[in-house]
């Protein structure tokens, strides 16, 4: 489909048109600069000027806590479905940032990998309509450009919107995206040569605004080859509070734990919950033995998982999309951007 435009003023009508087939989610300002994804309703203005959401959109597909199934009478075990069982509509996300769309594709590949498909999570991702919003200027912590994940994309979305002032340009790449636009065709017009020109100028300008740094490649090399002295890891790890925040806010982090939580008289929910490799108990075994008892080993683990060639080989890219959330979250300066810069500067 050729690029289309839609007036910003009728954007709510477009989202309303999608609401028949989809559960429509859009960024909403909840206070100050804090923006979150929430169910869209037409009384809330669509925010086009946010940097990014506090929590990544992974929470919509891989919730922080979810019931896998219910258990009654544990010793004799009657099990029943955890939830909706396909009853909910697929998601339509408007305003997904490029970094997060890349992160979502990463999660899709992860949950489909190693011979086992997590069908619940994959169904949520694969049925979703992803409508990204290209970024015009970097946020303070953003470095997507160093991670091949933004500020605008050439693939990996259904529709990519670019803000041209009073109108948005829609770059449509999939049949799902075309169908969504067709359902509200009266709201869209074919982009004019002037629109295309403005779009192209904007992309060029945006590219120039983002600083390309070399710390990612250097960090990957040194981490993969084990070139970082142990004393460095130990020194850096002193500042890790073990809060796990970096993992929870990361659009590509996927570790979880499973617990049986009491839910009533002799009844339990088997729940999956986000977990973090920076937690001391993440690898502690029943015997008390813990192969990653030292904080330094856990920090090293996170960076190896995110950045090493060994994982890039499997996943096709490194595990950071440069969204900058861990930069904003980590109080010890152990986020990807800061620590890779230190690796670059301190570990030749």
């Amino acid at each position: 489909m050729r690029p289309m435009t839609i007036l910003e003023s009728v954007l709510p009508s477009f989202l309303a048109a999608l609401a028949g087939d989809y559960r429509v989610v859009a960024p909403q300002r909840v206070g100050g600069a804090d923006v979150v994804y929430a169910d869209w309703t037409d009384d809330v203005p669509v925010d086009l000027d946010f940097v990014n959401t506090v929590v990544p959109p992974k929470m919509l597909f891989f919730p922080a806590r979810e019931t896998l199934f219910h258990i009654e009478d544990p010793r004799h075990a009657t099990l029943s479905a955890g939830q909706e069982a396909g009853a909910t509509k697929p998601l339509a996300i408007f305003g997904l940032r490029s970094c997060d769309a890349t992160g979502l594709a990463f999660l899709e590949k992860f949950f489909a990998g190693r011979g086992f498909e997590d069908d619940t999570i994959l169904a949520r991702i694969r049925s979703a309509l992803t409508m990204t919003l290209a970024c015009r200027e970097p946020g303070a912590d953003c470095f997507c450009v160093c991670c091949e994940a933004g500020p605008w994309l050439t693939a990996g979305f259904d529709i990519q919107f670019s803000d041209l002032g009073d109108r948005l340009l829609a770059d449509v790449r999939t049949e799902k995206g075309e169908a969504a636009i067709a359902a509200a065709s009266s709201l869209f017009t074919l982009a004019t040569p002037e629109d295309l020109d403005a779009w192209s100028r904007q992309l060029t300008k945006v590219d120039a605004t983002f600083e390309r740094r070399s710390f990612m490649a250097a960090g990957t090399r040194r981490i993969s080859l084990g070139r970082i002295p142990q004393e460095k890891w130990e020194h850096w790890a002193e500042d890790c509070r073990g809060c796990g925040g970096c993992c929870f806010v990361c659009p590509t982090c996927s570790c979880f734990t499973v617990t049986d939580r009491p839910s009533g008289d002799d009844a339990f929910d088997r729940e999956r919950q986000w977990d973090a490799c920076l937690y001391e108990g993440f690898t502690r075994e029943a015997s008390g033995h813990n192969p990653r008892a030292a904080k330094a080993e856990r920090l090293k683990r996170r960076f190896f998982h995110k950045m090493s060639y060994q994982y890039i080989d499997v996943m096709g890219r490194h595990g950071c999309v440069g969204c900058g959330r861990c930069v904003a979250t980590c109080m010890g300066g152990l986020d990807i951007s800061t620590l890779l810069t230190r690796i670059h500067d301190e570990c030749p």
Partner: protein
Amino acid sequence: MSARSLYLPHLAEIARVEEETPDTRTYFLEANGVEWRRAYHPGQFVELSVFGVGEAPFCLAQSPTRSDFIELTVRRTGAVTNRLHTYRAGDVVGLRGPFGNAFPFERARGRNLLFVGGGIGLPPLRSLINYVLDHRTDYRDVTVLYGARTPADRVYKNELAEWSRSPALTLVETVDRGDDTWTGHVGVVTRLLKGMTVDAAATLAFTCGPPVMLTFVVAELIALGIAPSNVVTTLERYMKCGVGKCGHCCVGHHYICVDGPVYNYDQIRRLPEAP
């Protein structure tokens, strides 16, 4: 049902429980509804659910050639295993699996096989040993060395007695501390290896047991001239999902639950983290 294929266990009724040692029992699980009952490989494991407490990984302790039941031998250590030890015949548990790779039983064909087990390390080896006994002509000499702390800590006492009488294999046992009835060797299992003559090039060694034992046994096997790639073990890691998703079992870029748990020492040496 959501995530049915991955996280929803099969229900299995406990048919029989056998006391192996004061803290270890073998559970015979009714496996009629389990389609992989005879289609797993020695070395693979299952995730066992004790509902209301949780799930934990256990190796399939019997050879698929003999699996009228799914057999798991479980030592009491923490939450899941303590609750399981209160379970009796008729109680129901959950099973997901079979997971993980397998012992290289194809590569073992035509070779001498040397098994070295310590304590609760015998169950995974027993699955392969019985598999080998059921395909006995495919293999050459079979030797089993088994060490336990005391005579009471030996698992599969009846089977050990059968093996000791069988011409199909050589069984040598030892205990760290004997008692009045014990007439066999006393001392750690590595002592049995010292001074043994093996046809190193033709031997494949399998060893499972506590980490300290493994360190010494592996050193001894390599000293006997067996190549690290011919020394096979299983790696134990904290596991939750068994299907390469939860991230708990990762070592370097390996998911032990999918890529393992069976590894040889040439592979282990090359892992970027100590296992």
